[in-house]
């Protein structure tokens, strides 16, 4: 029995996916469904809150917002990060907006309550006018939020009972560790407002079935072994590869980095075997080596891309 033949009715969710390859349309506009996502998904999933380059120095902070929640992410002395709920324990005012440094702590702009960089309350003005039960120490600190650092990012989770970040992002984490994700730095950052449900936006990038129709410029003949190997021309293949790399680079402001395209251009005249499969493997191996060599030559930390390819094939 194929998995798509299994009907599932055990999940008590409105508009649940009962047949795995049929996704009810209401999931993308029903307000009740959205509210369930707010209550049960976003409240207990790890989320990238910021890149560490946004908060490079100890006590640098930035604000992360998800739905109606605002979280302050603070860089710590040990290179890690901590997160705090951005709400003064007095009258709920957001203590900060945007980003900055909290080397002198946080001061609520409303009545001047003060907090240290770790969220500890350090000052309540006219404290003697409050009843004792409103000044219990511990109740006055900014509330901590789960925060972990991986891959050059700070991540938060609003559920204190969630498993550690790494358990929730495997095997992605292991794969990206091999690429030395932590040594990458931000080059650019774009933000777009899409008038669609968040899942539709995400799902446009979860398959490549759409490429032929949506991105016809990426379908470049000559990049794959021809049916009759005697018709293979290595020069035409290299031209097709270079054309593809340029199109990917121009198409997404560097989905293939301009440096890598330039390195590939340097291999334009590479001697290749007449056999198409061998020629394509040789091209890829030589290009990987050239990219690694170029990066290491200027002092960048980069893994051996051909070794990564071997590991990928063995999986």
């Amino acid at each position, binding site marked *: 029995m194929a*998995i798509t033949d299994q009907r*599932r009715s055990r999940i008590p*969710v409105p508009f649940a*996916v009962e047949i795995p*390859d*049929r*996704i*009810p*349309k209401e*999931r993308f*506009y029903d307000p009740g469904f959205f509210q369930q*996502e707010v209550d049960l*998904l976003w409240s*207990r999933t790890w989320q990238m809150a910021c*890149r560490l380059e946004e908060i*490079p120095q100890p006590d640098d902070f930035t604000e992360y917002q998800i739905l109606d929640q605002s979280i302050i992410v603070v860089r710590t002395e040990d290179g890690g990060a901590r997160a705090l709920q951005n709400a003064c324990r007095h009258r709920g005012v957001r203590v900060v907006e945007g*980003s900055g440094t909290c080397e002198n702590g946080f001061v609520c702009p409303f009545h001047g309550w003060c907090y240290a960089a770790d969220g500890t309350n350090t000052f309540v003005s006219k404290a003697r006018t409050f009843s004792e039960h409103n000044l219990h120490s511990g109740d006055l600190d900014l509330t901590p939020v789960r925060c972990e650092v991986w891959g050059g990012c700070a991540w938060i989770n609003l559920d204190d*009972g*969630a*498993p550690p970040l790494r*358990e*929730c*992002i*495997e095997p992605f984490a292991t794969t990206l560790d091999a690429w030395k994700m932590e*040594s*990458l*730095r*931000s*080059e*650019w*950052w*774009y*933000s*777009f*407002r*899409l*008038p*669609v*449900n968040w*899942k*539709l*936006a995400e*799902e*446009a990038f979860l*398959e*490549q*079935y*759409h490429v032929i129709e*949506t*991105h016809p*410029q990426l379908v470049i003949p000559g990049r794959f072994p021809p049916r009759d190997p005697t018709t293979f021309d290595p020069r035409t293949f290299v031209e097709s590869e270079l054309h593809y790399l340029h199109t990917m680079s*121009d*198409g*997404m*402001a*560097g989905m293939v980095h301009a440096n890598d395209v330039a390195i590939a251009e340097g291999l334009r005249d590479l001697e290749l075997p007449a056999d198409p499969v061998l020629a394509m493997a040789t091209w890829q191996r030589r290009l990987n080596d050239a990219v690694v060599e170029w990066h290491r030559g*200027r002092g*960048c*930390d*980069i893994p051996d891309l051909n070794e990564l390819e071997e590991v990928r094939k063995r999986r």
Partner: protein
Amino acid sequence: MEIWSLTRFPEGSQGEKPVPPEPWAHDDPRVPPIPTQDFSNLPRQQRGLHAKSYEYLRLSEGIEGGVANFERTVDGFLAGLPYEQLLPALRQINLNPLERPVVDLGF
């Protein structure tokens, strides 16, 4: 939606401190060509879903599993399943989703 470009800098040099971007409209001419093509479909999909006769996304079991497995994992969260049941599903969707089939998530 946000997109980051990360790259390698010589060790010791950090690149510039990133500044939060102003969000662009999905059809802003500054959006690069490939995402412009993706974004042009999305509002049409959001509107098209409402058609009276249309009931569900009719996915390819063989190559659109990335979408199906993700949606079913969302259901696991909405059902309030414990993490020991969610983690195996997360391990299925934290893979390169392209060309993935529909898989058994264990719930």
